[in-house]
């Protein structure tokens, strides 16, 4: 066997090739699993549709959310008048108001979640990373706050400090970070002592590399799941406050405020309840399904 068989050479070269193996990363894996979950995909599609509608809907619609149509007070949905969802008791176009309200509701959901994310992740990561007595005390504080009647606290805040939208962001976010802190702390604590972290350190990875390449990506999945479950909660809290008249104030509006207005005109104008209620419920429904799907796809504990 003096003549070299080209096929064998190829094999040898392949074997000697030191390119890193491209394994399927956590996220590729998760993406494949998410794609197979039809309910989650439908939920994501619904959310995208709502987001798109809320963003460009007001541009396509000719009416303003503040200026009444003097010819149509409390009229049912009709193509003739051009009010797709009818008008409210003050003659304002309901479609426009539902879209504007949706912007506010979604915005509150996202921003307040980011606030809680910021507080929760830093608190949890510090507690988990430091460990020991400090961790113990930090978590006890969380336990103590956890038992507080959170909704009443937010209401108290709104009553005392007046009703403005930035306070809503901060108030909801500041009270909602506890779960996040617990989850991140637990994850950090268990990651810190994992073999693959040790292995990375032994093979010469710097502390920075360990954090960026190993700890953060492993936290990200859990955080993403939790974010998708927190957003609907926050939207719900905001709607609850607005429903009580403590949230977003006129001329701005939100789905909760619209449901409140609709509930008062129940007998004469049921459409003014039905449309905002439909949008609110659909959004919460979709977020819950998407969150469930993400958890199934991303949560490493269930593997």
């Amino acid at each position, binding site marked *: 066997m003096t003549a070299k068989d080209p096929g064998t050479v190829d094999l040898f070269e392949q074997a000697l090739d030191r390119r890193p193996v491209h394994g399927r990363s956590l996220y590729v894996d998760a993406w494949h699993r998410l794609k197979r979950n039809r309910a989650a995909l439908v939920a994501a599609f619904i959310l995208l549709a709502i987001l798109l509608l809320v963003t460009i809907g007001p541009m396509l619609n000719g009416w303003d959310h503040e200026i009444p149509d003097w010819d149509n007070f409390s009229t049912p949905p009709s193509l003739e008048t051009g009010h797709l969802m009818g008008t409210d008791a003050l003659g304002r176009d309901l479609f426009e108001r539902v879209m504007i309200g949706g912007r506010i509701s979604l915005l509150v959901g996202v921003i307040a979640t980011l606030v809680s994310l910021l507080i929760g992740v830093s608190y949890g990561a510090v507690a988990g990373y430091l460990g020991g007595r400090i961790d113990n005390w930090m978590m006890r504080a969380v336990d103590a706050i956890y038992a507080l*009647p959170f909704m009443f606290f937010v209401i108290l805040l709104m*009553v005392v400090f007046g009703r403005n939208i930035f306070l809503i962001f901060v108030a909801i976010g500041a009270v909602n970070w506890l779960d996040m802190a617990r989850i991140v702390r637990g994850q950090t604590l268990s990651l810190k002592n994992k073999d693959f972290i040790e292995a990375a350190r032994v093979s010469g990875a710097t502390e920075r590399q360990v954090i960026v390449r190993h700890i953060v990506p492993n936290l990200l999945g859990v955080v993403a799941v939790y974010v998708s479950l927190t957003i609907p909660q926050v939207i719900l809290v905001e*709607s609850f406050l607005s429903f009580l008249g403590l949230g977003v104030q006129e001329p701005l509006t939100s789905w909760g405020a619209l449901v409140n207005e609709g509930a008062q005109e129940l007998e004469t104008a049921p459409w003014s309840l039905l449309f905002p209620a439909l949008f609110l419920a659909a959004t*919460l429904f979709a977020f819950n399904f998407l969150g469930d799907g993400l958890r199934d796809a991303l949560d490493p504990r269930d593997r």
Partner: protein
Amino acid sequence: MLSYSLKRLGSAVPTLLILITVAFFLIRIAPGGPFDSEKALPPEIQANLEAKYQLDDPLVIQYFRYLGDILTLDFGPSFHYRDWTVNQLIAQGAPVSFTLGAIALVLAFVMGVTIGILAALRQNSLVDYLTMSVAMVGISIPNFVAAPLLILLFAIGLGWLPAGGWDGSIGRMVLPAVALSLPMVAYVARIMRGSMIEALHSSFIRTARAKGMPEREVILRHALKPALLPVISYLGPAAAAILTGSVVIERIFTIPGIGSHFVQGALNRDYTLVMGVVIFYGLLIILLNYLVDLLYAWLDPRIRYDR
């Protein structure tokens, strides 16, 4: 068991302290006081009034006095309803709110547990998928949306039940209780289904079946008890959710309970009333959580709290 219950009670104290402290200082930063009126009072009268209610003492002394008052369950006078104390307002609303809340809680657990068991026994069947999808819808519809929809359908549309008010009759309780319990039915059903499926897969169930025990007995005598444990641990959060939910439900159905006082107080900026209700509800929730924990420890022999 005793040492556990004492320890657990001890951990409730800091929570209560935080609650009262934050509430107290929040009210103090709030603009406006109890004796502000459109016409400014002469300074001497203002000073006399403040002296009468001991508002002229240093803040720290006032704080500790307030703590003492709370310990004796005295929430002070209402700022808005001048002739009423907060205690009187709470005492007036409490029976109504408790009746409504208790009915809703029982309704939620009975229905949720039944649905959960049915879904678990027919896992992955049409019944299972259907009930669990409906449960997901139930969780996604907040009760302040469900309540007006129920009124629209059953009171205005069909005319079967009254749309609001409260006179202690069953007819007027049905709609608010159902609206209050709906999201909870869904939660309980989901928890129950999961834990029942888990219980049915455990080895002691296989043993019971292998002995030739009838399926009905297996489920009711062996699987039900361990499967109920997670549901019981949901009791605490459920009670909190009922209290929160009652705020909007009482408003929608114009029921004169604590919840409607709370909202009215919030809109009137009746600080003492709002604070009194927050602390009262906080106390209740902490107490309920404590009782649920004890119940749980008592029911589950595997849990040993005495460390």
